[in-house]
């Protein structure tokens, strides 16, 4: 089954982003649009590295916050899906020209 948000993701390399006050501000130069991520969104964003799967990110989330694996995975998939829709992340295999794993 193809789960939205599942897979391995990479930050879109064309973006500019900074963490400040535990928030992340992301700028898309091509659209001149500003995106914001809250504390947990910033944590996930920080750990998106082109290698970790959604499950890996969710596990990191459970280690950092008091949340079950099930809830963490659902939140992670939801965020990845939204980030993908906004073209803030791209599938890692697209960037690397092949499967990430």
């Amino acid at each position, binding site marked *: 089954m193809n789960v939205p948000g599942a897979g391995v993701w990479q930050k879109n*390399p064309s973006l*500019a*982003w*900074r963490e*400040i*006050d535990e928030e992340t*501000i992301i700028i898309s*130069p*091509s659209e001149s649009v*500003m995106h914001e991520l809250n504390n947990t969104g910033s944590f996930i964003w920080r750990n998106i590295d082109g290698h970790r799967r959604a499950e890996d990110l969710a596990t990191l989330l459970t280690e950092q916050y008091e949340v079950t694996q099930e809830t963490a995975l659902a939140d992670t998939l939801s965020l990845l899906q939204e980030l993908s829709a906004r073209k803030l992340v791209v599938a890692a295999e697209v960037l690397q020209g092949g499967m990430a794993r």
Partner: protein
Amino acid sequence: MTHEHAILESGVPAHVDLLIGSLPLRLNSRDSSLLSAASRRYQGFQHTENNRFSIEVDRHLAKHEESDAFVCDFEGARVSANSRHAHFSGVHHEYALDSLLRMFLSWALLPQDGFLLHAASVIRNGKAHVFVGRSGAGKSTVASLSPQGSVLTDEISLINRVNGEWHAFGTPFWGEFRADGVNTSAPLGGIFRLIQSSGNCVKPMRSSELLKSLLPCVLFFSSEAADHKRLLKILAAASAEIPGYNLQFQKNRSFWEVLPS
């Protein structure tokens, strides 16, 4: 005449030397009318500095070079630039020149940790107070309610880190509040987001809130990701190091009373 000013036999300057922020510039052109217009328009910003950034200005629209690091078009005119030289082409009047100069500066200030902001800047007690907001927010109103000679600009502020300290500089870019350009600077006392209100109130902002307030008001025209990353790094540093405030203000001089000294 206090400024170095090479004059051709006809009385038209061969070039116009400017200092905007910490950036020395030399406008060169074979078009005497454009240079004369620039000389008049930027009179308060003419200066003698070495290591000037050379800018060629002409009416003919030119192709840009592969080596250009910054290229931007505006209404039939084009600015193209590398690290030491720029070309403003397709310039038919001083307003196009002025627009290209703003676009160029937004890029050329990056290596100096500088940026242009839609904001009014006013010096008070030796500190620059920067009032940020989009059109209609009250920038010109604030400028008009400030003591004569204290206004650096009512439209485009230049913020630059100098020796580790943030400064606001006067610019030759003005809005409704017309005045002679004031080419001076002062250490930054604070950045105030303008909110028109029936009362005066000032509240500190978190760094992230200040950054989000600044971003929509920054002038920036590069489409290069590396330039945007550099800009965001500068803005994040500025937001963390400069006090930021939300300023609810009435349209009279009383708002000065609530500003932190």
